[in-house]
């Protein structure tokens, strides 16, 4: 049977765990035993858990900052590397290289650049922009912000390639007609390119948003596993791991939190696709 191996994996490691997560979220299961039914207790606890709200706020904030940047910057980059010019293929390839690196590698590289005695601070001090080194990694808000920039930095090349495929389909005639009519490059970008790749912009927005909701490695690596002072830069996935797989192993409670993440992701996606449908005539 052709489907058997893939189906077994899907059931054993995706569907069954999902059902199990649902069930466990109504119990007080711990890593070592337990598991009696407690009704909605975990969900009630979620509503009163400041860490959960902090994580949710940070995760949503992450999305709000990262998504517009990931929709716009790679498009500009794609336009930059689109024409056939000498060495342009080289630039395309090089721009993609952060995508193939692991987030652990990228995170550690930026940890070094952003350290209090790191390159960025040295530069800022040499240029007399700041007197004291900026606490990029030791201030929770700055840390979260730096993680966002790292996410964007690593994602640029990926979405650039997605846009390049779409740009290939933007009508050449429209560009030429606009040019004949005397439209400059900026005008042509707004009136020809942007409408042409609009569906792709929506797609990139959705992919970027879903990725942003699952953010973990950036924050974990750049804070040496602490999510900043007092865990103030925590994200939802960070908190789920801490609660469910940490020393306490509160599996039931972590399951409820996982489902909150699931509802957030799916809710957003459905709302987003509805909004897109309403926009497109």
């Amino acid at each position, binding site marked *: 049977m052709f489907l058997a191996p893939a189906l077994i994996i899907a059931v054993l*490691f995706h569907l069954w765990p999902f059902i199990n997560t649902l069930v466990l979220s109504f119990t007080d299961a711990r890593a070592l035993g337990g598991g009696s039914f407690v009704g909605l207790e975990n969900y009630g606890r979620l509503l009163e858990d400041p860490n959960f709200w902090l994580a949710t706020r940070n995760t949503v904030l992450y999305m709000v900052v990262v998504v517009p940047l990931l929709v716009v910057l790679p498009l500009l980059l794609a336009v930059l590397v689109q024409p*056939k010019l000498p060495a342009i293929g080289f630039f*395309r390839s090089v*721009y993609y290289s952060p995508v*193939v690196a*692991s987030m*652990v590698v990228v995170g550690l*590289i930026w940890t070094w650049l952003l*350290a209090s005695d790191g390159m960025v601070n040295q530069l800022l001090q040499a240029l007399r922009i700041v007197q004291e080194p900026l606490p990029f990694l030791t201030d929770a808000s700055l840390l979260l912000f730096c993680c966002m920039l790292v996410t964007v930095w690593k994602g640029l090349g990926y979405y650039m390639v997605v846009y390049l495929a779409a740009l290939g389909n933007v009508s050449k005639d429209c560009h030429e007609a606009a040019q004949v009519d005397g439209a400059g490059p900026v005008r042509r970008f707004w009136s020809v390119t942007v409408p042409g790749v609009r569906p792709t912009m929506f797609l990139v927005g959705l992919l970027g948003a879903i990725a942003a909701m699952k953010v973990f490695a950036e924050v974990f690596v750049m804070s040496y596993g602490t999510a900043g002072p007092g865990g103030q830069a925590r994200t939802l996935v960070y908190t789920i791991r801490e609660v469910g797989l940490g020393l306490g192993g509160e599996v039931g409670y972590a399951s409820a939190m996982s489902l909150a993440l699931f509802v957030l992701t799916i809710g957003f996606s459905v709302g987003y696709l509805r909004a897109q449908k309403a926009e497109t005539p």
Partner: protein
Amino acid sequence: MTTSLSAPAAHVAPQEPQQLRPDRARHTRGGLVLRYTLLALVFALLVGPFLWQFLTSLKDSSESIYTPNPIPQNPTMENYRTVAETIPVFRYIGNSLIVATSSALLNVIFGSMAGYALARLRFRGRTVADVMFLATIIIPFEVIMVSVFLTMRSIGLVDSLAGVILPTAATGLSIILMRTAFLGLPREIEEAAMLDGANSWQRFRTIALPSVKGSISVVAIFAFVFAWDDFLWPLVILKNPDNYTLTVGIQYLSGTFSANQRVIAAGTMIAVIPLLALFFSLQRWFFMGVGEGGVKG
């Protein structure tokens, strides 16, 4: 300035027909200068950090790593040796190779089998199968991670490489990519083979599979890179430092060695250089994969 200059431009996206690209024949000199200036600026922003890290990894302990001069005065491999003395880095490389290679192989085998069934075969319950595979794409792994850990514990795969590999052994994306590839093949040859008495396995092995080598490469490469780079799941399931994959091992190194940037830099280079080499030698498959995966997945 005309397009006659464009001959050496590397062809990175072979599936993309050239004539669709707007051909702006009239690049002005000023426009070109501006474009290349911007290209160089972005180049510095995206490559600079890698380069800075690489140069840091070559500086010996007598030299300051804080100087604005990025070029090492006495380039040394000492930091790489220190990495090998601090963590069992060859073991980690081996573990990552096992995980990434197995994941690539299993995704190709299972993904193409399932993709073929969904594209060509008639059977009962195919809607159910469709929905199941769709669900694996819609449910983020992070949501079920705690529960998958419990499943792994009950089948005794915690702290094993098999436990790292299995959840990603047949991803929804691989199945979709392979299904799309098989749907693109003409049906006639397979129908002729069917009349000649070839069963579905023979048709799959000898006719369909050899025709989709491009998609197989894409699936293999993406599975390999994903598994090599993955961090969260190996971090969750591997307990004993001897079993770590390279990403978890490098993070562990940075935790225990956070004072010595040179050594951490060397560690990150060990993790990233093989992948960059893979990327630059096989780049057209990477771009093809983004095109297909990004648009359809």
